């Protein structure tokens, strides 16, 4: 998927403002080694374009409706290189500085854009990817927690409100969110999920399970002295010794 530096770079422009996309297109069109393959007015379109057209690089606005730039990065960051674009956002700028991420500040000059392109090609050649999870966490205002979970399913994006999630289960290299009777797989570790959620609401009851406290009906002890969490829908999840300690502290 990664092209050699000499070939044409296939880019997609993601910004909810038509004029902001127009500047990028204006600057990029004369460049012979760059091809603008798509323009997206929101994050959902961006995910679709990455899945279907496989661009090499996204110019990604930070503030957008529904999905912001960081959330788009979290969903597609493994498949595409990203250059962030923003007018001003103190949290985003801090996150960029901390993780040495290249970004464009609106309004920017053609020269500044060319520099960003050169560096992006460099990163593509080395196969570097942005640390999506860390950036998402760093760009969140301090003390605020994720309000929802985003899961990508090919070109579609599922938005899972936290109150609808029953529990999260670790499965090999993935985590599985149980939500309204369906399972949603996401490429993330359970520890990362745990860190992004409110510890007063989701408790790690076991090495492999993170439980939404609202779903807990009671805790039972089975015949072999193992503790088991009984959920409101009757489902049984194992509770480890340390998990029980954490659970008791919350109840």
């Amino acid at each position, binding site marked *: 998927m990664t092209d050699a530096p000499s070939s044409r770079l296939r880019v997609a422009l993601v910004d*909810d*403002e*038509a*004029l*902001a996309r*127009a*500047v990028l297109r*204006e600057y990029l069109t004369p460049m012979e080694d760059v091809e603008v393959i798509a323009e997206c*007015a*929101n994050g959902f379109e961006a995910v679709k374009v990455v899945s279907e057209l496989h661009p090499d690089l996204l110019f990604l606005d930070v*503030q957008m*409706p*529904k999905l912001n730039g960081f959330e788009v990065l979290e969903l597609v960051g493994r498949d595409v290189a990203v250059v962030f674009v923003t*007018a*001003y*956002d103190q949290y985003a700028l801090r996150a960029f500085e901390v993780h040495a991420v290249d970004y464009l*500040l*609106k*309004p920017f000059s053609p020269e500044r854009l060319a520099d960003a392109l050169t560096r992006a090609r460099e990163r593509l050649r080395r196969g570097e990817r942005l640390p999506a999870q860390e950036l998402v966490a760093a760009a969140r*205002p301090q003390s*605020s927690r994720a*309000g*929802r979970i985003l899961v990508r399913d090919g070109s579609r994006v599922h*938005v899972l*409100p936290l109150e609808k999630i029953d529990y999260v289960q670790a499965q090999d290299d993935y985590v599985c969110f149980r939500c309204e009777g369906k399972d949603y797989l996401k490429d993330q570790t359970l520890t990362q999920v745990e860190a992004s959620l409110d510890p007063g609401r989701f408790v790690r009851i076991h090495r492999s399970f993170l439980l939404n406290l609202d779903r807990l009906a009671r805790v039972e002890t089975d015949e072999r002295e193992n503790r088991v969490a009984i959920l409101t829908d009757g489902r049984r999840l194992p509770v480890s010794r340390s998990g029980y300690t954490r659970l008791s502290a919350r109840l």
Partner: protein
Amino acid sequence: MHPILARAERLASYLAAWLVVAVLLAAVLTRQGLTWAEALALLLPICLVYGFVCLSAWYVCRATPLTTSGVMRVLGSSGLAAVVASGVWIGLERMWTTVLDALPALGVSTAQYEAHEPFLFAAGVLLFLLALTVHYLLLAFEFAREAERRQLQLEVLAREAELRALRAQLDPHFLYNSLNSISALTAVDPAGARRMCMLLADFLRDTLNVSSRDQIPLAEELALTDRFLGIEQVRFGERLRVERHVDAAAAQCRVPPLLLQPLVENAVTHGIAGLLEGGVIRLDVARQQGRLSIAIENPRDADTPPPSRRGVGLDNVRQRLTVMFGGDARLETQADPGRFRVELALPCFTDD
């Protein structure tokens, strides 16, 4: 906290005053046959202790404030408290007499003390009433200082609100995005770029101009918000639509400057900008007799949690309304999942 007990140096001078009272009372008693030694041996200790008893006058003052209690009530409770306190004072005198009697080594004769009890009782009542007066004075003094502090606080609040309003109009996000729009328009629509420059220049000039004034006619504030919305409409295109219903009779009502601009800005940033298809911002202004009512309503994305920053702009507007109109103005919000509405109700004053 008791104003005398609260500070060590106040307590020291208060007790020193009681020592002086003890000496004065002793002087009176020496004229009625007691020796200085006998008089002081009695009065110095019991005056000091009575000094502490008289600190309770504070609670009498607090329970019957001069401003709200009737004369009879003040006199009644003062008199009663003074008699009770003086009773305690005579009790002290008797206890101390017993102690002195038990210590003949001191060589103080207590035989004549009892004869002076009526005089001492009267002195006790008067002294307590004096203490009461001092406490009432202290209370009035503290009240005046508190009022002064509150006034100062209100002024600081007004100044702060002004500063914040000034900072808000220079919202970096708004400015940089507007400049970016101009940068985009220069290539595709030079005339549009120039129009946008003018809009931005006018808006900045307006805000600088009005923010140095205490109040402006509503018409000016509305013109300023129109400019703001005009700029944002270039940025958001079709996504931002505005419906205005403005009662012409309201145009001359005086309002604090930048009253509506932060609210309209919120409606764009936290409402329209979060919606894929955008939406309509409604602005309704009506005047009925002496009252002005303004409502700003915007749709918002029901799936996005409401921002915490919104509170700051609203608090600022609320504070400035309080500074200008006191309790006569109201700001209320209604937050539904897909809609946000702010309502202002304030008195309408015009120049004529």
